[in-house]
């Protein structure tokens, strides 16, 4: 018999934080593999580096805060943050930027607010934005998908690029890098070209989005479906976010199809799918009421469209998520469900 009496319920618990995080990591596998296929070994190197930096940073801060280290590391939340960060940044990002990003994410955004569960902002996205604002060139120098550049970077080449920023002999930056589809679309639209002209002049375009990119997004969609199936996430945030983005995209495309890309382009070119299923659904920083989640997701989707179309950055998932993180507590407050036995009016 135990010496202290434990309150009910006296049944095995059915969920565990580490299993939730593990499901997210599992669901990320297809997307990470697809990215590796199209963008080379750099993706995996970045993931490994980021995970290592994040775990070390988390352990150090926990030691400083005199908190138990192993339970916090064991919840795998730092690993999820690291992986999400690593697949959001260019595959050849210098290693020290990854280090900076992880220090920012884990130390400042997460642990200084009290650790898992207390951070108001999504750590991976905050780190991404921090680096994007600080090192805009490095953060927007994406590799071209290998099927476009025709250059097959070996594991050693990728490692050298990340660690020493040296290119393999006989290759220059212009040959391996390319604007992302969103960036390209935006630049060309600014040049007053029509969508038809833009699509004609480049081999960048696939059926929906950019070549390669659309497969990466399809892989993330697969992972998202897995999370829904395992009930790790609910449909509210992904569906409302994609609906928010799509509805605005469709509206403007219908108004003027020559200056607004086909709606599916918005889904399959940037980080919309990844954002909808893996980033906006971060439970800590999102709204918690179901009605609130619909509002939260829809606002993220709409913000993504607004920034992509009229803002200063080609993609906007990180900004949109961080902006709505601020609004989450307020949305929660105003969307409390009607409690059993209370009238139709709001709870208070």
């Amino acid at each position, binding site marked *: 018999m135990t010496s202290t009496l434990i309150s009910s319920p*006296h049944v*095995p618990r059915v969920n565990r934080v580490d299993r939730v995080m593990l499901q997210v990591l599992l669901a990320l596998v297809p997307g990470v593999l697809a990215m590796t296929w199209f963008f080379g070994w750099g993706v995996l190197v970045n993931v490994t580096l980021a995970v290592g930096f994040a775990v070390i940073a988390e352990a150090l801060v926990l030691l400083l805060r005199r908190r138990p280290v192993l339970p916090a590391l064991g919840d795998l939340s730092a690993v999820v943050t690291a992986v999400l960060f690593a697949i959001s940044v260019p595959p050849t990002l210098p290693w020290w930027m990854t280090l900076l990003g992880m220090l920012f994410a884990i130390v400042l955004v997460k642990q200084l607010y009290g650790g898992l569960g207390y951070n108001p902002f999504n750590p991976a996205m905050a780190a991404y934005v921090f680096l994007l604002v600080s090192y805009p060139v490095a953060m927007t120098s994406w590799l071209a998908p290998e099927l476009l550049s025709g250059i097959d970077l070996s594991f050693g080449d990728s490692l050298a690029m990340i660690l020493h920023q040296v290119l393999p002999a006989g290759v220059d930056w212009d040959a391996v890098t390319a604007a992302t589809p969103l960036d390209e679309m935006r630049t060309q639209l600014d040049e007053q070209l029509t969508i038809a002209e833009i699509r004609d002049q480049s081999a960048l375009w696939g059926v929906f989005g950019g070549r390669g990119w659309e497969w990466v997004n399809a892989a993330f969609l697969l992972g998202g479906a897995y999370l829904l199936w395992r009930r790790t996430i609910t449909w509210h945030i992904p569906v409302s976010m994609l609906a928010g983005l799509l509805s605005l995209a469709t509206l403007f495309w219908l108004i003027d199809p020559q200056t607004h890309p086909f709606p599916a382009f918005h889904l399959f070119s940037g980080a919309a799918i990844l954002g909808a299923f893996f980033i906006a659904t971060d439970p800590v920083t999102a709204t918690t009421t179901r009605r609130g989640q619909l509002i939260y997701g829809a606002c993220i989707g709409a913000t993504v469209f607004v920034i992509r179309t009229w803002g200063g950055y080609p993609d906007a998932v990180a900004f949109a998520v961080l902006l709505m993180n601020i609004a989450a507590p307020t949305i929660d407050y105003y969307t409390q469900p009607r409690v059993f036995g209370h009238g139709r009016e709001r709870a208070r």
Partner: protein
Amino acid sequence: MAANPVPSSERRLWTFHGGIHIADEKALSNASEIAVAPVPKQLVIPLQQHIGASARVLVAVGDRVLKGQCIAAADGYVSAPVHASSSGTVIAIEERPVPHPSGLSALCAVIETDGEDAWAELPEPMTHYAQLDPAEVRERIRWAGVVGMGGASFPTGVKLNPGPDRRIDTLVINGAECEPYITCDDRLMRERASRILEGVRIMRHLLGGPEVLIGIEDNKPEAIAAMRFALGESDLRASAEVVAIPTLYPSGGEKQLIRILTGKEVPSHGIPAQIGIVCQNVGTAHAVAEAVLDGRPLISRVVTVTGRAITAPRNLEARIGTPATDLIACCDGYREQPRKLVCGGPMMGFELGEQGVPVTKPVNCLLALTAAEAPDPGPALACIRCGRCADACPANLLPQQLYWFARAKDFDHAQDYNLFDCIECGCCAQVCPSHIPLVQYYRYAKTEVWAREQEKRKAEEARQRHEAKQARLERQERERQARMRQKKEALAAKAKAESGTSSEAKQAAIAAARARAAAKQQGASEPTDGA
């Protein structure tokens, strides 16, 4: 899970938000018939086994008592008497550990049984209750000490008296038994369905003949069949229905069951009678039938003794006051050392610190859980706000918000988020991935709020007393001063009056003196005699 398909009824059923599916574990104990537990050597009968005022003890140490004899009388309207559950001698009236979440002791009458199990004289059966004044029948139920047997133990006589201005349309009979492991109501319905229905008939009569809905979860097909068969034989069949409801914890919660069967919601902080509904447990109906039709007080109940640590789990008809250890021994003892002994079900029951506590009227289950059945959930991790708790909450609360407020001791906000609508069913804690003991936080917050309210009430009373005292002192002072003033005035008046009379006297004396002097002068001028 339900083995046999249950014929669904035509009735429309409603749902409530949340709830969880959980292994029901009923098969451990529902296979064998209810066995009568032997008379224990000692009965420990707590004087408070109900909600309301503790009963007033009527016997003294050394008294011989008979089975069914009232040993403590109800003290007040919301109270219930307590009866001896076998014959013997009262050897102590003292504090003993009782089945209560606090683990504290309470006043008990300890009876050393004599093995004769001799009955006291019982009142006449009331088979003709339909011709009697309902108040008389209620008085019998009250006399018998019948309280809610589903766990809340509210005096049944009170619940069956909703008042003349409240019309009761529906009597809900709760046979849902949604807690895992517990099968006492299941067995009772299978074996004594007609007796239960007789109790239902009495209760229906007392409530003015409402419609009767008997709700049973569909994982108990035998109980549903038995109750339907008995209902078919009874004259209640025109006004009552046995309704199979989907198995979903906590469908057996009073508010949840009412919602499922009628679509109505009991108002927050309200009681079912406000919406024309009274809800009674099947065990209570059984006890009512015994009291009215046999004149038998409530001295025994069916208790499920189960859990994988028990060698032969089963249901026992146990005398109130039988120590838990005796009942466990009756089930061939422990197969393995339990990790914990729980009173009640695994979702809402509480751990017993002391194995010798007696069975009381609301104890429906003794649950000896092995380490595999009730593993240590480990240290609580941080809340990740996943919202699974809110999805599971049958009251549609936001459990994680309540948790943050309770943790921060922000009880005002916790109340704003409807802390007191929490029924402590444990769904939130069961699904929490961080293994936070959520229910414990809510209980803590509620207790703190109650304590504060009590403190506030005390402070208010003290303030009123103080003010009353101040007022009294002031009044006394005023009165004293008034008296003083009166006295002074009286004195002054008297003094004035006195001084007035003295000056008149003086003047009179002066006048007299002058008159005398004048007379003298006259006399002097006149010749006097020879001198």
